[in-house]
């Protein structure tokens, strides 16, 4: 299951989806808005997506993860718009019969999402400045 939403992410709903009796392990990852980065204070983050493509890229990641690991559930939700401090911009919930697969898949999914899914973050600093984040791609 993949989803983009403008609402706060309901982590409990994702856990309920992942807690199936075929599974023995659930890993939930949340990426949350951090207050300080390199000493600079963030007031909030804002996220924008190329929604149609982001959904299809997220669905492709789910399919690839299901091909690599025996996952019972694989749910990825990304929030768009303003994400206040300590709230989740992204949630990934995976479950599997044994725990190694759930940890590996969860980490692979967030690493891959950050490389391929057309979603962008704008830092809003507490001093009023705002800045889109466009990291140098690997090898550039």
């Amino acid at each position, binding site marked *: 299951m993949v989803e983009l939403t403008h609402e706060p992410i309901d982590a409990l709903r994702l856990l309920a989806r992942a807690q199936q009796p075929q599974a023995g392990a659930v890993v939930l990852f949340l990426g949350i808005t951090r207050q300080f980065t390199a000493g600079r204070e963030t007031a909030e983050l804002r996220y924008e*997506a*190329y929604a149609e493509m982001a959904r299809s890229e997220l669905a492709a990641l789910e399919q690839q993860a299901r091909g690599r690991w025996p996952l019972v559930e694989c749910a990825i939700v*990304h929030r768009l718009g303003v994400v206040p401090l300590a709230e989740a911009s992204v949630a990934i919930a995976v479950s599997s019969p044994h725990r190694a697969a759930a940890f590996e898949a969860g980490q692979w999914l967030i690493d891959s999402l*950050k*490389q391929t*899914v057309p979603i*962008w973050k704008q830092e809003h600093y507490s001093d009023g400045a705002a800045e*889109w984040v*466009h990291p*140098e791609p690997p090898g550039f």
Partner: protein
Amino acid sequence: MMKIKVKLFAAARELASGSEVVVELSAPATVGQLRAALAREIPPLAPLAERSLAAVNAQYADDADAITPDDEVALIPPVSGG
């Protein structure tokens, strides 16, 4: 000549002052020609366009891929979701 509408996002959208721009290209055209035309016609966008990818019909495309006016084309600056 053909007109290609290009979706823009994040800093690219702000640098071009709009979420969509129209670029004129002679047919047949490739993704690489489109990126060059974007950089030429919207100079503030040039440095970011250089290190962006492109998508055709919501899929990542190579510079050699062909584009037609019927395609949905987007410039994809380096992503930062998560």
